[in-house]
């Protein structure tokens, strides 16, 4: 009766012990939740033949991934498909339990009444996790029994008790204990309705976005670990193939890779340098276009020169192929219209002037688009400035020199600093599509090099090392450029 007498709007605070336990519960649940995505901790890897890159989550959703090395024993009837369905079901139940945990953790941000209900979920979840683990263990026992049939069956199945089974078991017990303690220490008074503070409600609504960002943008940083291991795709990371900083020193001490790196850096810096050296072109384009008297013509030029920006680099290459290949426009024009016999040069196969050619393709694709921001900038300049200058007797070149260009400078500085900061990232699409054996050594920029050695040649560790350096230098350059911008213009660019 006393509890009902609490007037609405009065906040009921829990004891400080309860608060600590609450945070502990949420922490344990978060860690357990993340464990789902780490293949090392996958409790479902009940055979060494199950893909070591499969996490518990993958195990729960993809039959193909867990059985792709089991085709033979499955075909020969050494193991039943049922066995793997059992495994998947077990994994799915564990994932379900973890979802219950997370639901409970979310509800624990509410008022005491909501906490009291919400904390029941993780207790249920912990039970589900244990149940799922028992199922997985049962699948393992079945697999072991199948493997025991003969030596050849054992070789084909290779059952193994995954470490994840114990880890998840311990995690489930921890979740259960912390939740139970937090639940027991909840204050006795209760509110009328389940409610949650708005700040937490908004946070929870935003949480899915944050999780996606974490998984796809921050989790890859965990992939930097490959730089410290002797690793080929399909291997597993163990302390046996941990090599410390071997690849970092190898990159500089091995003559071949060092020369490669120097060559690739030269290409990268030349391409970026050419880009920066011509970064004034869009301004010139915009300023000159504004001088054209017919506004219809202006609009036509702006519309048509922007089109190339919206096609992919593959299509740019298709166009280059149509124009410059052996039977392309240039050659057939020379042969059939100009009467030059034997004009059949494949311009795409040569490495002459390749850097300038790449720059020209980039300009063809991007000039009209990059000019738009300056065209908009010119439209935003105060007309009174021009009128005043005209009264003072300025001609159109003086107007450009003293009004238009200074007006566009702040935008240009931002663009310039951004391109300096992105000096090492030329992107790989353009260079990949134009790459061929003849021009490879001249066209291979850093991004393409990483792709070529990492994906094509499968040298994961060394390409990761290059990537790590590139990321770190990139961030340093960005902060440097930002610092310059802050010091000079009093404004940051990021």
């Amino acid at each position, binding site marked *: 009766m006393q509890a009902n007498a609490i007037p609405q709007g009065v906040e009921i605070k829990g004891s400080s012990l309860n608060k600590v336990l609450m945070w502990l519960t949420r922490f344990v649940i978060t860690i357990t939740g993340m464990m789902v995505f780490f293949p090392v901790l996958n409790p479902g890897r009940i055979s060494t033949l199950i893909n070591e890159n499969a996490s518990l*989550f993958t195990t729960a959703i993809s039959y193909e991934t867990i059985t792709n090395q089991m085709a033979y024993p499955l075909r020969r009837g050494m193991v039943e498909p049922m066995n793997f369905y059992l495994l998947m079901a077990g994994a799915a139940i564990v994932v379900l339990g973890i979802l219950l945990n997370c639901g409970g953790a979310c509800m624990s941000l509410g008022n005491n009444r909501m906490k009291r209900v919400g904390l029941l979920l993780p207790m249920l979840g912990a039970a589900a996790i244990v149940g799922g683990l028992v199922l997985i263990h049962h699948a393992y026992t079945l697999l072991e029994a199948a493997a025991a049939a003969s030596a050849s069956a054992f070789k084909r199945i290779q059952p193994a008790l995954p470490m994840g089974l114990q880890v998840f078991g311990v995690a489930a017990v921890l979740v259960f204990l912390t939740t139970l303690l937090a639940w027991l220490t909840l204050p006795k008074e209760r509110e009328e309705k389940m409610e949650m503070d708005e700040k937490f409600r*908004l946070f929870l609504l935003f949480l899915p976005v944050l999780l996606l960002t974490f998984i796809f943008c921050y989790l890859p940083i965990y992939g930097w670990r490959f730089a410290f291991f002797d690793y080929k795709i399909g291997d597993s990371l163990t302390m046996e193939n941990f090599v410390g900083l071997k690849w970092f020193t190898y990159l500089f001490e091995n003559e071949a890779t060092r020369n490669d790196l120097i060559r690739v850096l030269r290409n990268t810096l030349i391409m970026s340098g050419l880009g920066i050296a011509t970064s004034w072109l869009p301004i010139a384009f915009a300023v000159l276009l504004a001088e054209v008297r017919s506004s219809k013509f202006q609009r036509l030029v702006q519309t048509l020169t922007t089109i190339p920006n919206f096609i992919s680099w593959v299509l740019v290459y298709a166009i280059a192929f149509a124009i410059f290949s052996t039977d392309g426009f240039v050659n057939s024009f020379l042969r059939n219209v100009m009467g030059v016999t034997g004009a059949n040069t494949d311009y795409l196969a040569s490495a002459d002037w390749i850097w300038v050619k790449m720059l020209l393709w980039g300009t063809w694709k991007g000039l009209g688009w990059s000019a738009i921001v300056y065209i908009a900038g010119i439209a935003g300049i105060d007309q009174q400035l*021009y009128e005043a200058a005209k009264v003072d007797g300025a001609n159109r070149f003086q107007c450009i020199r003293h009004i238009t260009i200074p007006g566009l400078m702040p935008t240009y500085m931002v663009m310039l600093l951004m391109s300096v900061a992105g000096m090492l990232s030329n992107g790989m699409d353009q260079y990949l599509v134009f790459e061929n054996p003849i021009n490879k050594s001249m066209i291979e920029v850093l991004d393409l090099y990483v792709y070529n050695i990492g994906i094509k040649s499968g040298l994961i560790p060394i390409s990761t090392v290059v990537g790590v350096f590139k990321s770190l230098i990139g961030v340093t350059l960005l902060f440097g450029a930002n610092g310059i911008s802050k010091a000079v213009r009093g404004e940051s660019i990021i």
Partner: protein
Amino acid sequence: MSKKVRNHITRTPGDIIFDSLLYIFFGAFTLLCVFPFYYLLINTISNNDAVTAGHVNFYPIGLHLKNYIALKDVADLGSSVVVTIARTIIGTALMVIVSAWAGYLVTKQKMWKRSFMYRALVITMYFNAGLIPWYMNMLMLGLTNNFLAYIIPGMIAPYNIILVKTYIESIPASLEESAVIDGANTPTVFLKIILPLSVPILATISIFGAVGNWNSFQDSLLLMSSKPEMYTLQHRLYVYLNQSSNLAALVSGSGTLSQAQADNMLSSRVIKYTVSMVSIIPILLVYPFMQRFFVKGIMLGAVKG
């Protein structure tokens, strides 16, 4: 525009020369941007023998559309078109929904740890772990050789979230406040008030998103290595362009050529051109709509979030 002011000045001979040079320069550059597309087009609709002989340079000869019809027999092209259309529609729709929702929520000053989370989102535009770690991450998540790899990572587009946030901040706060007083909760306010008012910015990001999805090449190249039927159209075109063997042999049923087909033989060059046209045409179709939006999009981006 500034030129209106200067129109009153009488033109000197120097001005006239300068103006003519401007017209010549811009005319030439515009032609340079448009001609390749025109050249591709006339080579796909002209008589294939004339194309092979190199006579189609400036105008089409012997119009026909058989090349486009013949594409239905080119191996693997159909599945690529379907996959690309599917990812363009689904991927763009999900990206727009997430961007709108996230962009709205980050305008909420009351949110717990708002600025921290917003920063965590924005940093990802400037920093990434690198290609190989990203690839290994996708491998770890089981998102290789899997259609979901085209959809899920693309849902988070920090730049678009910033655009939406900036736009929503310009909507008068009083509209939202009055709805809250009437008892609307956050999702209701979002659906009934914010969403209808943000249609212009959502249209902008959806068109850019659709073009990006249509042009996607890198994720297909990296992630679909053992599922050729899931290559995107651009990846498929890249494969064709690099195929030195006769592509025309890919056209199934080439064993029994009818007389009409034999007269108008498809060369692999023409197939390459025609597939290129097929991937360009949708871009050219949405281009007029896009044009309305991109100045707005760029200018909004210049206003920092």
